[in-house]
């Protein structure tokens, strides 16, 4: 039984590989810039945006991409320097999810046949259920995101590590930041397809966190983060093909297991030294 002879596995690998690469690269900067919880919030937005699009009769993917990019840019420009306002942010995003629940109920009650499981696939991913157009769109979007990120990688690295010096050297800090947020929004939208809105961390944050434990060299870390994310998706998809449990569980569990192992090795290494 060759997994690659099935259409759904080919689509999953096509979308999954490039999404993982984008998520690993973008995730590296997310951890470096301490924007971990922005990506969590964007996952919630993706849920509401996707279902809102369905209720309005628009394509789900269009809603997911539009909402995550818009909110990422909005959060970046409005609340850039607002640390410690976690109560206000938490309240807003609980409400965003509440609106998503309303959309879910509206959509489920109008389209009783397929509506019931749509919400679950947005929340937990549906990579093995992708159609050929969805897989192509996701892969093209992920490749575009990756290329765009590589194009701004140098100034982005600079402003993430030392924003003041970067600004003094004439790096257009504000522009690079907004551009990065657009990429972050797009990556979350792609990752929602693969692992789901609730498990974004598993693909965007965990590989990057492992990479930063292993190496402190910036570009090596970024490449390692991307490579790890791709490896988790490949192994996770293969496991899900043979074992009838969700791919997003395997991907997240692999990432978490590797993270714990990297932490332990890091500790032991420090103790031996």
């Amino acid at each position, binding site marked *: 039984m060759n997994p690659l002879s099935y259409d759904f596995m080919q689509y999953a690998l096509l979308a999954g590989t490039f999404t993982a690469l984008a998520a690993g690269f973008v995730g590296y900067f997310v*951890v470096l810039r301490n924007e971990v919880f922005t990506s969590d919030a964007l996952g919630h937005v993706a849920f509401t945006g996707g279902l809102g699009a369905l209720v309005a009769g628009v394509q789900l993917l269009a809603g997911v991409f539009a909402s995550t990019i818009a909110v990422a840019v909005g959060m970046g420009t409005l609340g850039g320097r607002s640390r410690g306002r976690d109560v206000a942010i938490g309240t807003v995003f609980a409400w965003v999810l509440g*609106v998503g629940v*309303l959309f879910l*109920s509206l959509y489920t009650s109008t389209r009783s046949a397929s509506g019931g499981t749509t919400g679950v696939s947005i929340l937990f991913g549906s990579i093995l259920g992708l159609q050929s157009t969805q897989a192509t769109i996701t892969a093209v979007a992920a490749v575009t995101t990756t290329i765009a990120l590589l194009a701004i990688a140098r100034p982005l690295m600079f402003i993430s590590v030392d924003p003041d010096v970067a600004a003094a050297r004439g790096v257009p800090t504000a522009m690079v930041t907004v551009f990065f947020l657009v990429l972050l929004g797009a990556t979350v939208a792609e990752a929602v397809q693969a692992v789901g809105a609730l498990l974004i961390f598993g693909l965007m944050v965990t590989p990057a966190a492992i990479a930063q434990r292993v190496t402190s060299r910036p570009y090596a870390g970024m490449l390692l983060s991307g490579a790890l994310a791709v490896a988790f998706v490949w192994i996770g998809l293969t496991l899900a093909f043979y074992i009838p*449990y969700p791919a997003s569980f395997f991907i997240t569990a692999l990432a978490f297991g590797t*993270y714990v192992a990297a932490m332990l090795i890091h500790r032991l290494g420090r103790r031996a030294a």
Partner: protein
Amino acid sequence: MPSWDLLADLQLLLEFHFMQNALIVGTLVAVLAGAIGYFVVLRGQSFATHMLSQVGFPGAAAGVLVHTSPAVGLIVFCVAGALGIGWSGRSVGAGRRSEAAAVGSILAFSIALGLLFVRLYAGSAQGIYGFLFGTVLGITDQDVWLTTATTVAGLAVIAVIGRPLLFASVDPDAAEARGVHVRAISILFLILIALSVAELVQVIGTLLIFALLVTPAAAAQRLTSRPGLGLALTIGLSLLVMWGGLAIAYFSLYPVGFFVTSLAFATYLGIRIVKAAA
């Protein structure tokens, strides 16, 4: 259909047994959540609360998987999570880079575990929505008793440790110097958060807990800095949001989670606007 005759509406609301159970549990939960939430905001522990609520999803699913009530699984997982946070001995926050990444990784894994548990017992999409966003239909008589017991226990503990907890929250160093066991109290309080999270999940689900455990308290603390008044105001707002959400949801046929989060958000926004204008 609701009329504007309040007495008749109330009769409609209490007509069905599931709604009676939902209102009893909702009331108990709102009182405990208000009391705990006041201290959560005072101590800046809203992030730890968010973490504990995410652990609720695998907890509830595990409860179903091993054929006990989801409520039992919720309590076990949330209390274990609280002990974990307390044992690590650090204040959990989204501030430090490595810590945020670690917390994010744990949360993703815990939610994935919940998904696996649901698949293991072949749960339905409706079941998942129930855990994540709450449902008023599934509250059994047994859950009512369990909620009553945990609420009474939780309120009793708050009544006993309330004063030292307030002291330790406002000025931990001075409290320590005066012989208050700050560490023990903070672990005990984490367990109280876990209990109220476990209760809240039954009504509004793991993803929307913030709206009832943190938002009313944050709104109340914008209005007053006096502890007694703030506590009473928080409980009042929680009850208002909970009763309003349950009643509107019942008559509109739309999910309770939407109305509870919207009412909480509107209250918070309204108070902030009024305070900004004043």
